[in-house]
């Protein structure tokens, strides 16, 4: 894809996903979950991947660890490079070595991602034992330190998940993810299941730890507020494509894609009451039956003839900001002005 305009130093990127296409194929239908995603996460940076249900966020994340569920899930094309090495070409043994070690994942629901019949200390120690090849005793000792790190008294390491509240369980999950000091942390809606005051605590913790360990992070979320709080760059996903990408400033202050604009307009603003919200009209497209051309065109207020005929190319508006939309061809100056107003 049109990545050549910005040619970053390969060494700087923790993660590079190039033109990734993943479909779930069953006898009856083909679910086109990911349709040409490009993502770059620079070392030590956090990328927010934003989108609604069915945008392909989680499938993209799973591909980073080559965990796309088989046999339905098929990676049809594309590359996933972790520190320059292709993940999709790795053997099972190599994958095992990076999962939980170089790349760790925090899932949405802390209630179901912990094992109910093992103590939290054991669950943290397990990962240390496997990846660090230390004795069980040493692993348990380190597990206690990890608990302290995420703000849980180490005496509680012998307790079971049911004895912990939701926020504390998510802290345990974070502790497990961080045990091996990963280079890349994938957080898939890490605070969606938590109350706001607890969410605030957990986000603060993630931010502190990320800076302390210089981790790169992929933050998957539907909440633009969380993006504003923890991310450096943002990719907006729609129907399995990244339709806009930029720095926080590019996206929050100079959003260009009509869908990005729609997402911001649909949010109730806590500071200013409006009599009516401005929803994005229509529904997310059915991934088994995507519209031709730009997947957003049936819902777009600025739709043109060309939108239903061809998929817009990725256009770089600046060093950091790119958008996939027919409005941003040079010939459409007049339409462009209207959107920008």
């Amino acid at each position: 894809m049109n990545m050549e305009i910005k040619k970053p130093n390969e060494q700087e990127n923790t993660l590079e996903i190039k033109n990734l296409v993943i479909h779930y194929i069953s006898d009856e239908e083909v679910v086109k979950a990911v349709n040409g995603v490009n993502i770059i996460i620079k070392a030590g940076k956090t990328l927010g991947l934003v989108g609604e249900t069915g945008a392909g966020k989680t499938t993209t994340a799973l591909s980073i660890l080559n965990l796309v569920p088989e046999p339905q899930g098929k990676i049809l094309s594309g590359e996933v490079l972790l520190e320059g090495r292709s993940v999709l070409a790795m053997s099972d043994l190599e994958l095992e070595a990076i999962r939980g070690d170089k790349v760790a994942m925090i899932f949405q629901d802390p209630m179901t991602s912990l094992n109910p019949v093992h103590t939290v200390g054991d669950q943290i120690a397990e990962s240390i034992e496997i990846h660090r090849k230390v004795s069980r005793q040493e692993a348990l000792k380190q597990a206690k330190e990890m608990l302290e790190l995420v703000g849980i008294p180490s005496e509680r390491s012998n307790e079971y998940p049911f004895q912990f509240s939701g926020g504390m369980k998510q802290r345990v999950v974070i502790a497990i993810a961080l045990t091996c000091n990963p280079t890349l942390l994938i957080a898939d809606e890490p605070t969606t299941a938590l109350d706001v005051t607890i969410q605030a605590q957990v986000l603060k913790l993630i931010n502190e730890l990320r800076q302390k360990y210089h981790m790169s992070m992929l933050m998957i979320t539907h909440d633009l507020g969380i993006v504003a709080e923890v991310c450096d760059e943002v990719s907006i996903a729609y129907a399995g494509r990244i339709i806009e990408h930029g720095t926080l400033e590019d996206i929050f202050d100079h959003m260009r894609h009509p869908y990005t604009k729609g997402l911001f307009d649909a949010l109730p603003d806590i500071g200013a009451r409006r009599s009516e919200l401005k929803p994005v009209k229509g529904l997310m497209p059915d991934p088994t039956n995507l519209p031709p051309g730009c997947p957003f065109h049936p819902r777009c207020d600025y739709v043109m003839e060309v939108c239903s005929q061809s998929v817009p190319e990725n256009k770089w508006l600046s060093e950091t900001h790119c958008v996939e939309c027919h409005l941003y061809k040079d010939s459409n100056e007049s339409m462009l002005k209207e959107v920008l107003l």
Partner: protein
Amino acid sequence: MSDVLLEVKDLKKYYKVPKGMLHAVDGVSFDLERGKTLGIVGESGCGKTTIGRAILRLVEPTSGSVIFDGVDILKLNKPEMRYMRRNMQLIFQDPFSSLNPRKTITQTIEEPIILANMIPDPDKRFMRVMELMDTVGLAERLVNTYPHELDGGRRQRIGIARALAMNPKFIICDEPVSALDVSIQAQILNLMKKIQREMGLTYIFITHNLAVVNHFSDDVAVMYLGRMVEKAPSETLFANPGHPYTQALLSAIPVPRIHNRPERLLLRGEITSPINPEPVCRFVNRCNYAIPICSKEEPGLIEIEPSHFVACHRVGELQKG
């Protein structure tokens, strides 16, 4: 005299659990005027859902009174209560589990009409279903579809049509948009506002999402561990929150802005247990402003400015600061 539709007085709902009594709702009182919306906000376990259910007597309140349109509904017997419920409906949070998967849209919407025997004639009843579907923006061609064929937004529209079938005066909306994507959430909120305007409905809007409640409600009540800690008109509450918990709750919301970000007040710890609470301020363990009296006496609601109520021992001092 204002036109009060619903008056809730000292409503309590306790549950017996092995360790003692769980105070889910502990002495909540408020009035709600006809055509207005009261938002009830709070985090999990604060009793907001239980209040809604207790008002409809879907759980039997332990004590207190609920006066609806001049009638104390806690004194009604079963048939009378059944009749009364025509006026009081509920919209649920999860449009995936609140619809019967084996019923078509038509069957779901007409069920309450059949149960109440409101329109015995099947043709007229079908006309009524079509009218309801039109009101909530469901296309006619969907009459015979099943819930699994529809997305979350459309399912929630069915839930709303079903609630409207009885021509109610009052609807309790329990997290009606929490399960929906933002672009769809805005559609449903706008629909609910439109219906309210057109039919003169009164709403209680239960949610944990403060931005939504600010957008939607005339008054907001903040709950913490079964108690109402603050109640005020929306603008007042958001501009000038009085209770330390409300302040922390407001500052905890991640704001989708990158400039002028508000400073965050982080709370210590987590919500405490609602089982056998001591008669002291329930927020004392997490409060940044606690003084000795807070762990001795339970504060009552004080009116600090017209229709702005706060339950905090230090409210006078904190407001100035």
